């Protein structure tokens, strides 16, 4: 079998105040898979996400991205490979213009000049936001900001895209536009959500997280069809 795009082994993490957020997480994702990570509020989803490119460091266990351990030596490479898209696009989009924001990632990895312009244009085109290139993020609608947020990460040519609650607060049209756009992307994807319909629509495989561990892992149809399992996990 191929090297997993993402491999998490026995990952544990406690916050400085002693509260344990992750209590032994195990899973792996293969290249090209689209996986939903479901879980109630406080299940540890966002904490797990922050481990995937080394923003938080494990108390125990390992995270590997395409065979590379998440350690200081590989941090920059890991961050290029794993594109995190945060829940609130106002956190993700921090530069004064869309162009600058999309360029921020690749520029940090040394891309410059015409190459950088091409990356920015390509990423915005992929999310259908090329007309917004010179606009300020705060002048865009929430749905548009979400799409630009995806572009900021695509511009780094990541190998895996991790989206934290991408559908939250979007109106139905915004949700549809976002899911239509995400299905066009040919990339390994992990969707963190408690929006079951979204998981069913976009992902072939589902993980359920509860109290800091993975409690179910299987095909989307099977897991999303198991009413009792979902109810037990507040989904």
């Amino acid at each position, binding site marked *: 079998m191929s090297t997993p795009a993402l491999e998490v082994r026995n990952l544990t993490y406690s916050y400085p105040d002693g509260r344990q957020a992750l209590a032994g997480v195990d899973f792996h994702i293969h290249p090209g898979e689209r996986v939903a990570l479901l879980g109630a509020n406080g299940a540890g989803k966002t904490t797990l996400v922050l481990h995937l490119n080394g*923003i938080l460091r494990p108390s125990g266990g390992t995270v590997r991205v395409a065979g590379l351990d998440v350690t200081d030596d590989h941090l920059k490479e890991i961050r*290029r490979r794993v594109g995190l898209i*945060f829940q609130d696009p106002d*956190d993700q989009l*921090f530069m004064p213009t869309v162009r600058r924001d999309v360029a921020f*990632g690749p520029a940090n990895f040394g891309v410059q000049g015409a190459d*950088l312009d091409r990356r920015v244009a390509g990423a915005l085109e992929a999310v259908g936001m090329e007309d917004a290139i010179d606009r*300020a993020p705060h002048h865009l609608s929430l749905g548009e900001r979400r799409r630009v947020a995806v572009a900021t990460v695509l511009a780094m040519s990541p190998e895996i895209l991790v989206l934290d609650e991408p559908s939250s607060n979007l109106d139905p049209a915004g949700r549809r536009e976002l899911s239509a756009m995400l299905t066009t992307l040919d990339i390994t994807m992990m969707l963190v959500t408690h929006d079951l319909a979204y998981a069913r629509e976009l992902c072939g495989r589902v993980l359920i997280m509860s109290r800091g561990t993975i409690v179910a892992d299987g095909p989307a149809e099977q897991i999303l069809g198991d009413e009792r399992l979902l109810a037990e996990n507040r989904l």
Partner: protein
Amino acid sequence: MLHDLPAQVKIVALVLFVGAVVATPREAFWAFGVHAALLVGAIVIAKVPPGFVARRLVIEVPFLLFAFLMPFLGVGERTTVLGLSLSVAGLWGAWTIIIKGTLGLGASVLMAATTEVTDILEGFERLRLPKLVTAIAGFMVRYLDVVVGELRRMRVAMTARGYDPTWIGQAGPIASSAGSLFVRSYERGERVHRAMLARGFDGTMPSFEQVHVTPKAWMTGTAIPIMSWLVAIVAWVIR
């Protein structure tokens, strides 16, 4: 025409123009007339509506009020104008504040009317202002709307639960909302920092493309301030 000039040219032009106005001797009334004519000319060329400039100049009013008081409050030699005893030094002081302040502000308004905030920031960056400084200014521009939006939502939530800001006894909620706004902004700062780290930020802001400014753009942009400097120099020579 002015709209298309690179921001750094406009910043330099503004600083040069204000410098020329400040350097002009106060007795050279004609020179200020020429400065004003140049500024009005630039406003006309830029097609900025006069009403827009006039409204923006209102910010100057408090300073003008102060300037109007100076002839009355000034000490030293006095003169009589329309039956009022006025201080000569105060009159000169008031004249200087009014004319230099108005010309400087008018030029700033012209720049603000023809340049996007984001372009001004990029202009400062290209003028080699430290990237940290322009980044902080950029965050301020970016997050002003977000923070104001949060404040508005907090006010609505307070009003919905019977908060009445006209009653003095309700000052407490205002103070505590300022506190929670600070905490929220601080938390946002942390989340933004995480988002920056996630995209490879390592403590220094990345360099972006440098727009090459043609000599022609520099000449077009600085023509008026250079004329102002000539006027200021002539005013000193013939004084």
